């Protein structure tokens, strides 16, 4: 049996009578870029919310590297190694770019420093601040944002905000990165650039990627395997080429 980074078993949630997701079984291998696609309202973001602890699943479990994370809080799940970006960008708008990334580094044990140490400016505060700043710069360099590091996050152009969100998520040193429509609102050039970036971070940060995307070119270019959702259930789970020629999938997307 292959080593799975993420394994969900019969994962599901219902809001009252509405079954937003049910019986979702996804297994993602280490280093894979895995796609989660489906028409609007299929429950893709719901799955992300389940995997990050925003919702607690009503049925089923999910495991990260064999460790059961079902029912943990958002903070705890992030610390265990699942980081995400958001469909509608959620940066810390009134903070500079570099500080956004430094918030991502907050829980890294390398930069440990208690509030008391900071309040009274004990030596460890300076050491950890300096190290954090250096690390944040390194991460920004990879995303080609180093020049803009002192700008307010809300002043960045849209494409760069998306990149910054990914950079911030990576700063939490995740094992699994969830990207919620990373290419939404990007022009073809930016999308192509983003594809390279996603591959680069997979190799450089040694993460596994699970992404939601409507741009099928993006999905075809990046993912080997996809899960197609429709009305909260899994419609197909196979290689990208097979999935896109599956009549059920075509029907869900464009009708009969």
């Amino acid at each position: 049996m292959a080593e799975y980074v993420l394994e969900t078993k019969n994962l599901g949630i219902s809001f009252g009578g509405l079954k937003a997701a049910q019986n979702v079984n996804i297994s993602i291998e280490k280093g894979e870029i895995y796609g989660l696609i489906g028409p609007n309202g299929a429950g893709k973001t719901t799955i992300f919310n389940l995997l990050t602890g925003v919702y607690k699943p009503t049925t089923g479990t999910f495991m990260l590297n064999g460790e059961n994370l079902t029912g943990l809080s958002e903070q705890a799940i992030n610390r265990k190694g699942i980081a995400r970006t958001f469909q509608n960008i959620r940066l810390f708008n009134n903070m500079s770019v570099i500080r956004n990334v430094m918030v991502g580094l907050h829980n890294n044990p390398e930069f440990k420093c208690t509030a008391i140490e900071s309040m009274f400016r004990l030596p460890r505060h300076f050491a950890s601040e300096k190290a954090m700043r250096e690390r944040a710069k390194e991460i920004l360099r990879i995303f080609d944002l180093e020049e803009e590091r002192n700008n307010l996050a809300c002043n960045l152009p849209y494409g760069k905000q998306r990149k910054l969100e990914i950079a911030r998520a990576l700063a939490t040193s995740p094992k699994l990165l969830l990207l919620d429509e990373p290419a939404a609102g990007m022009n073809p050039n930016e999308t192509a650039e983003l594809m390279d970036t996603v591959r680069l971070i997979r190799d450089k940060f040694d993460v596994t990627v699970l992404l939601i995307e409507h741009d099928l070119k993006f999905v075809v270019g990046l993912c080997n395997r996809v899960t197609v959702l429709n009305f909260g259930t899994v419609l197909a789970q196979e290689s990208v080429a097979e999935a896109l020629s599956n009549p059920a999938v075509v029907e869900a997307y464009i009708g009969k």
Partner: protein
Amino acid sequence: MIRGKNIKWKDFINYAVIAVVTIIFGSLSVTGNLASSTQFLLEKMSIAILMAISLSLVVGFLGELSLGHAGFMCVGAYLGGKVAAVLAQSMGNSIVTLILSVLVGGAVAAVCGVVIGLPALRLKGDYLAIVTLAFGEIVKSIFQNTSFESFGGTLGLSTPRYDKKVLFIIGFVLVIICLAVIQNLIRSKHGRAITAIRDNEIAAKAMGINVTKYKLLAFTVSACFAGIGGVLYSWSNYTVQSSNFGYNYSIEILVMVVLGGMGNINGGILAATLITYLNTTLATVLTGDLAVLQNLVYALILIVIVIYNNSPALKSFRERYNLKALLHKIKLVKHDPMRVKDDEAVWDRVPTKIAMDEILSVDTKVRTSVAEKGDPYESEGED
């Protein structure tokens, strides 16, 4: 603080200004050249600044509205005052008595902050504001209904009065300590976590920030310094009356923070100084039949300041005639509104306008609370 050669003097200018003012007035006072009314005014100012700085941590940086700040001050005033009254019998009005009472008052207020914060910080926005408001009123009436022997009851607690010549100096030293602690906290990873919660709580959680912990931390530190402000109050008055710590006073502190600009500590200090000065001056200038005008003039001045600071119609005027533009003109600083001054100084860049709307306008609040009831992640409705 010293990173290489470039000490960022701007980061420390507020300490310097307060220190210089204290030294000037302090030396005047000690040599006996300062009127006692001025001494009392300076005492009041130091208390107001303490309150404003500590509240600004919760309102400006954590982004939560607290209307019970005077409640924490009340706790500090009574507990610190009691300790002072007891100790003064054996030790006199010495600096040791004062320090001990400050420690006790601050600690008890901090404990209250934790006790109130634990349940209250699960609430958000308006609801938290109402709970803190209730807390302030409860504290007030508890002390009002104590027995005469314990806390003076309705007559108020008699407390020792510290030497007028020095008390305001001690007050400003406490202000500097408070400023240092809060500013250091904000300019650290913990401060970043706190401002991250203000900017986007959902994203902060997703980044692994322990939201409850940091809300509680901000709330507790803020309560602690409010308590210290209370102890100072008890030393500068002969009696501590709990009726002085009603929500009116909480609102007055909030006005200082809002006028100074949310999340702008230096602005808060300035506003606290001005409002205290204004209050005292109006009370001395408008006497007799004109006394009825005190509140009217006070309110008018506040309205003018708020309009001047926030009205869109005056935007171009503000941009042309402000301190930054003036400094730019005489080539002291580079002026680039898009760019933040340096890596760290972003802490004072906060959306004053938005925050003002949120606090002052009932209309916008209703809309946000309706939006919050929906799914926080999919409020834009697509998937």
